[in-house]
């Protein structure tokens, strides 16, 4: 398997929205390399078969409005104001 580079780990961390400190990079890099190195063996198996579960179908709930207790949800928020979640500035 190709070697994973530090810049790739940092890029994946960025799209995962997880900040990584420089002291953590080597450990994470080794862990990713180890797991992905093992996982790549799925490429050795090129056989494909029809999915036995192909007849399954999605079952979804009826799309109907239900009365929910918004208070309960807002009570759990780290910061809220008049039924809005408050977050830091976007820009």
């Amino acid at each position: 398997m190709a070697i994973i580079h530090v810049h790739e780990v940092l890029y994946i961390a960025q799209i995962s929205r997880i900040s990584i400190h420089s002291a953590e990079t080597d450990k994470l890099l080794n862990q990713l390399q180890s797991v992905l190195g093992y996982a790549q063996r799925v490429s050795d198996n090129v056989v494909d078969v029809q999915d036995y579960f192909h007849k399954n179908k999605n079952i979804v709930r009826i799309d109907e409005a239900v009365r929910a207790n918004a208070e309960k949800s807002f009570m759990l928020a780290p910061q809220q104001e008049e039924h809005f979640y408050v977050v830091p500035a976007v820009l």
Partner: protein
Amino acid sequence: MNNIRFMTIDQLQEKLSKKEISVQEILQELRMVCMQVNSNIKALIELFDEDSVLKGYSASGPLRGIPGVLKDNIAQEGRLLTCASKILATYRSSYDATVCARLKGAGALFIGRANLDEFAMGSSTETSVFFETKNPCDVTRVPGGSSGGSAAAVAAGMVPWALGSDTGGSVRQPAALCGIVGMKPTYGLVSRYGLVAYASSLDQIGVMTRTVKDNALILSLIAGHDSKDSTSLVHEIPHYAQKLSDRMPENICIGVVENALYADGMDSNVVQLINDAIKIFEKAGVRIQLVNIPTLEYSAAAYFIISRAEAASNLARFDGVRYGLRSQEAENLYDMYSKTRHDGFGDEVKARILVGNYVLSAGHAGQFYKNAQKVQRLIRKEFLDRLKEVDLLLMPSQPAPAFKMGAFNLDKLQMDLQDYFTCPVNLAGLPAISIPCGFTREKLPVGLQLIGAPLAEELIYRVAHAYEKSTTWCQEVPKI
């Protein structure tokens, strides 16, 4: 004191019906056991006070007054729901999971929240942000994971039943390592509404008990269709416990998965004990046939990819906006997301999210995710093909007995491979039970798996119960 520790649900119900003990006495006595044992084993993150346990308690139903615990990734209204993670350390659930509501309706008492690997990601219960749980059979060893708190609580006689969740073996592997019974039902049999999602195409809530009969009773109560879980199956649930007999069902053929039993790295003690169990099955009239599942050797790799890809997606919701931890150092919105997730998730969870996003990313999805899906389809086919030839499959639950705490700190891959024999069953969506099959020379428990076709729980329980009745393993209790 009535000395009810280690009693089965069956035995407690008999005492209740004869009025030899009251519900309050059972609760008080088992809470006492929990307080004594938990300081050492650390199976429970929280033991609830007596008044709150009895609040709203339904005094009727098949599980009237029988205490148990839920893994702390299953919602209990008004209780903390932490997933053993800093990011949810103060999160309180506003509703009951369907399994919780059904058991409450059946009269069960919930006396605590069981420890787990953070977000159910691990095989040793060492990644919990709170503390490591110890194996009651040997406190220098792990109880397995991720439902290690649930397994240890049952094995140590703190409660007669517990629920866990099983994504790649997290009910069966700790059950095997602690010497108890663990059932992972068919995908879709038990509602996951209220279970914090890890890998949604694999997650299933499972039951942990000291006997097969108790296990069958609990599953009968939690299984069945639930419109709140879109993967829930419409299926009539038999009363599994009432179908049990001490006699082995007739004309049963069990396929022993040869390339699992003799896989590289198998502990010789485990192999010997499983071979001894096979002889017991044969003596009971079961026909044994050797079978092979060649794709087994790719299953852990496929599991790593699929579970982590789904985890990356499921855990994206924890960002500090609507609930849970929020970093106070953020200057803007992106900063808040990334610092909250850095501070809130432990190392293992972060690593799995990164692996998940890597295998899903453009340029890598073909090599990893799409190939893993092919392996998954092949595994399903091979299992289902074998299950047309035999009634049940038999495999080890674990490659080796419980390992020492910290044994895999420097080699996380070996820790992940503890799921080698359990995760293919999740990939195939099949039901499987782990039952005790003896002890190693060091007195460590070993389990074996019986795997059935979809919705074959009744047959699995009947065969497992008959086997259990011809052995004494379930009567062995840890000296703690």
